[in-house]
């Protein structure tokens, strides 16, 4: 059973450390991601998210620590690793004079893939009817879809997405999230970095907060919110005032005995119109845990 559980881990990092000159970009970072999981790495700009991706994709070598991605040691098996991962970079690094199809064809040549795969990935990101247009004429959203298509050409086991929704309009961002969701359902393991808490909340099964190169929290978004939330209840109460009915919002503390008694009484009197738990947002949790705002 132990062996089976190990094989389910598609990303494993242990005590990864990387410095650039005097600056420690990543410090003792450990994490693990299961097959098919969407894992979010959240943090402000310069926190070490992109460096972590570069370490995990074998673009740079860690000073110490180790990591295995899709069964490959990121420092020793870089060539094999490159065949098993896909990377969508923060920058929209496409050949803008070439068409979408020509961009993908070039990637087919790089990975020695049959060109029929191009139509498959274009269909996956719904770009088939724009395939012959030069990429330079594409909107940010279309480019992002093409970047994902390019990263998926060689059917990677693990997909790294660096800020996939940056600079996109809400509709394009929603489309990208849908694509990511579908990929996860199809069994692709996804590690994404973002500073958009709403995106992380919607997409990720687990998130990790990274600040100054260190992981300060790592759990499911819901559990993090429960763990670090204030446990408050918003009650909308019906009140009789001068022969007319009115509504009043009252906030109760769930851990306070007096508040618990008041709520029980109002419920028995039938005066409670609505009840809402005041769960902390992921952004508030980040601030609470990291001690710094996200942006």
């Amino acid at each position, binding site marked *: 059973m132990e062996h089976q559980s190990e094989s389910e881990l598609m990303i494993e990092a242990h005590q990864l450390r990387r410095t650039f000159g005097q600056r420690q970009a990543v410090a003792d970072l450990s994490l693990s991601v299961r097959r098919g999981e969407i894992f979010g790495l959240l943090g402000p700009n310069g926190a070490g998210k992109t460096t972590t991706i570069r370490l995990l994709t074998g673009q*740079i070598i860690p000073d110490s620590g180790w990591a295995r991605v899709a069964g490959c040691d990121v420092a020793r098996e870089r060539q094999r690793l490159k065949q098993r991962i896909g990377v969508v970079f923060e920058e929209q690094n496409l050949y803008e004079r070439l068409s979408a199809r020509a961009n993908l064809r070039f990637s087919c040549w790089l990975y020695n893939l049959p060109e029929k795969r191009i139509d498959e990935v274009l269909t996956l990101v719904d770009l088939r009817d724009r395939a012959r247009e030069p990429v330079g004429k594409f909107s940010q959203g279309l480019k992002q879809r093409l970047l994902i298509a390019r990263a998926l050409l060689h059917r990677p086991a693990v997909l790294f997405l660096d800020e996939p929704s940056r600079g996109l309009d809400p509709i394009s961002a929603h489309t990208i999230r849908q694509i990511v969701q579908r990929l996860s359902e199809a069994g692709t393991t996804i590690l994404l970095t973002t500073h958009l808490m709403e995106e992380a909340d919607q997409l990720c099964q687990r998130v990790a907060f990274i600040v100054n190169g260190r992981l300060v929290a790592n759990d499911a978004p819901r559990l993090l919110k429960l763990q670090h939330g204030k446990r408050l209840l918003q009650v909308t109460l019906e009140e009789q005032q001068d022969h007319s009915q009115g509504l009043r919002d009252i906030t109760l503390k769930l851990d306070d005995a007096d508040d618990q008694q008041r709520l029980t009484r109002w419920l028995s009197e039938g005066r409670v119109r609505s009840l809402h738990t005041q769960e902390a947002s992921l952004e508030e949790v980040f601030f609470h845990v990291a001690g710094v705002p996200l942006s």
Partner: protein
Amino acid sequence: MHLRSILAIARKDLIDIVQNKATLVGLLLPIFMAVLFSFINSIIGGSPTRLLIYNPGQSPIEQVVSAAFSTPAITHAASPSDVETAFGPDGAHKQSDYALGLIVPPTFESDLRAGRHPQLQLFINGDSIGTTQRALLAQALTDYGRQVVNPEPPLAIVTSTINPPQPNTFAENSKAFFVMYVLVMTIMNATGIVPGLIIEEKEKKTLRMLLASPISFSDIIAGKLLVSLTYQALLLLLVFLIMQGFTGNLLWLLLFLLMGACLTNAIGLLIGCLFNTISASGAVGGILVFFFIVPALFVGPLGQFIQNQSFMTIIKAIPVYYLAEGIYNALTSQTPAATMLTDLAVIAGTTLLLFVLAAWSLRHQAAVASSI
């Protein structure tokens, strides 16, 4: 390095380069120059060179002789005496309607192979043919003889000259000069193509994508150099065809063109590694153009007019001068091998130095490439 990866890069860039308007203009410039200079040369070159040839055995040597002139007009003589009459016995006449007369024995090639010392009779009119063309012609005839019988053909050339030979004129050497100039400009293209291809990958951040794929940094560089060499070869061929420049000593010419390609690609590689923006490399490239167009100007006929030795010393301090001189001399076949070897050594030394610098820069680039 992997050939498949190198070819992948090369195929992409071969397509991408013609879709980039700036690069395309750069590529088309030598062709435009070739057409322009051919036109200018046809004006300067003047009327056709009239050749009177007696060639009963249809020997290919006739084509060899006519190829030595830019605009030959051949008249076939019915008998050897027709040629002798036109120039006078042993070139006794002072005037002739023809620039050159040639009497080829009926069984020239078979006599040559049998070692029977066939005799070519050549009549040269010094009013129409200068020393350079005469030297070219002699070289072409000897080369042809060597093609038939290697290495020392039992060939006898009897030359009769009417009128004293004229010193070389600009018109006589203009074709070789123009061909050399356009060839140098064509080779120079690599100093713009190579850095453009490398820097654009850095500037557009596509280099990061490439390095995340199974391709290596050395594959990328090799692919870029292959593209540059391919375009250089294609352009050189086009320029040759347009300017009909297949004259002189082709072996030396190809050697100089190859060394020139190595030199310009080394320069391009160094610029591509040292700079990270197209604008910066463009500025350097703009300055570099002068180091190609100026020294090449003073090779050949124009250089003979310059009396200021200090100026020529400065010009000769630029290695491109030796490239231009080597190409020009190869085109005219008028310089001893020692001079050609000196020119070649200067270019080879410069190229080696630039490649060493580029390799040092590449090692640094490979280390930081992923952080760009």
